[in-house]
């Protein structure tokens, strides 16, 4: 596997981890709040 491809794969993994962290920080709480609104 060429080094650039390996590096690209690692960067994609890091990007995905960033997305997951962001979802855990803001996305999860926002969807939980919406669920609460439905029960009003």
């Amino acid at each position, binding site marked *: 596997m060429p080094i650039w491809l390996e590096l690209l794969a690692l*960067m994609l993994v890091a990007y995905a981890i960033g997305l997951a962290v962001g979802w855990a920080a803001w996305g999860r709480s926002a969807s939980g709040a919406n669920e609460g609104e439905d029960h009003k």
Partner: protein
Amino acid sequence: MSELLSENWWLLVIALVLGVVVAWWVFVGGRRTKVEFDSRDPLDEGASKARRNQALIDTPAPVPPPTPEGLAGVGAAIQAEAPAAPAPHDDLTRIKGVGPKLAALLHSLGVTGFDDIAAWDDATIDRIDAQLGQFAGRIRRDNWVEQARLLAAGDTSGFENKFGKL
């Protein structure tokens, strides 16, 4: 692999930060824009009218002015002449085989009580049956007349013996 990581860690950090920023923009930044558009609640548009109507409904009925001496008793006489309030309807859905739709159809045909159905003869059954559309044939199949006779008489045990539990 470890060499690659140690030499290019800053690239991975940039990718990680980029991912976090994109996630923030999707989950927080995008939502803010949406909230601005949704800030006006369409239900509020008629709120003042609804309040006015509710106030009119809640206002107590006006008290009639006192009757002059010469006209005493006229109000009572008029009230006596007024048609009596319609008799309360029986719940026709108590008849086995009659659901809400069929009960509404019967009401529209002027059939409102068990007494009405109990009094049907063959000719009346044919006439009503012809107006029941997709429910035609139900009167005889489910024996409405017999059911209505028992229900009109208040014979619950007789009804349940013959047609099952109410």
